[in-house]
């Protein structure tokens, strides 16, 4: 059961709102203060990724963010893009980051995934249970 649920149209301007809400709920859930910067960044990256996928596929569907604080602080960011696109995430090796031939989009996706993987110890990217889309699930400990 989600404690807080947020849906937003896939526009970049709303990603900041999702970050702010995500951090506010994390703080209230008891996530350690020193982890909040990472929570903010990770939620932002997951939402940015979802917005980019919706725009890439011309989807007007809302991006969903669900925050739950039972036992742990769990955030699920759900997009509605085709599964093969959503699961096609990969980290880029450092020597490829400044590669001339790399497109800005590929670079940003690679860096975004590197940040998610680097900041979130408990991270899963998987197909949604129902319908089309993927879910980025991130879990942080709460200090209660």
């Amino acid at each position, binding site marked *: 059961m989600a404690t807080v649920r947020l849906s937003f149209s896939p526009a970049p301007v709303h990603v900041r709102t999702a970050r702010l809400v995500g951090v506010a709920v994390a703080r209230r859930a008891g996530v350690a203060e020193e982890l909040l910067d990472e929570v903010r960044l990770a939620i932002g990256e997951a939402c*940015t990724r979802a917005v980019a996928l919706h725009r890439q596929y011309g989807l007007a569907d809302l991006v969903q963010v669900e925050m739950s604080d039972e036992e742990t602080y769990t955030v699920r960011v759900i997009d509605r893009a085709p599964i093969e696109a959503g699961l096609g995430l990969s980290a880029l090796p450092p020597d490829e*980051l400044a590669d001339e031939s790399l497109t800005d989009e590929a670079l940003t996706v690679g860096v975004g995934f590197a940040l998610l993987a680097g900041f979130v110890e408990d991270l899963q990217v998987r197909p949604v249970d129902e319908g089309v889309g993927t879910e980025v699930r991130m879990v942080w400990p709460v200090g209660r």
Partner: protein
Amino acid sequence: MELSLSTRTVGEYTVLEVGGEVDVYTAPRLRERLIELIDAGNHKIVVDLHRVDFLDSTGLGVLVGALKRLRPAGGTFGLVCDKESLLKIFRITALDQVFPIFPTVQAATGGEPDGSAGAAPTA
């Protein structure tokens, strides 16, 4: 906090001071400003991030884009950052191996304090 951008000249360097949040919404403005500066012939650019509160993958992508754009022109591109939360982002993405990162503008523009004295980073 909204993105703020201001430009000044330090010696032969153009210093772009960035403040606020650089994310998927605001990064296009940073990209435009950097392209304007480069296209106007500023080929020694320092981006001062010390007033940045938040930087995400989109912002990092813009900075890499500027570095790549300066390369053919033989320019230099350095970053100023002393905030641990941002430095960690550069380390995790290994972009600390791509960008010359200095603790102060003075160090980035060939001054001495806390920097590698006189070493102008090459893009």
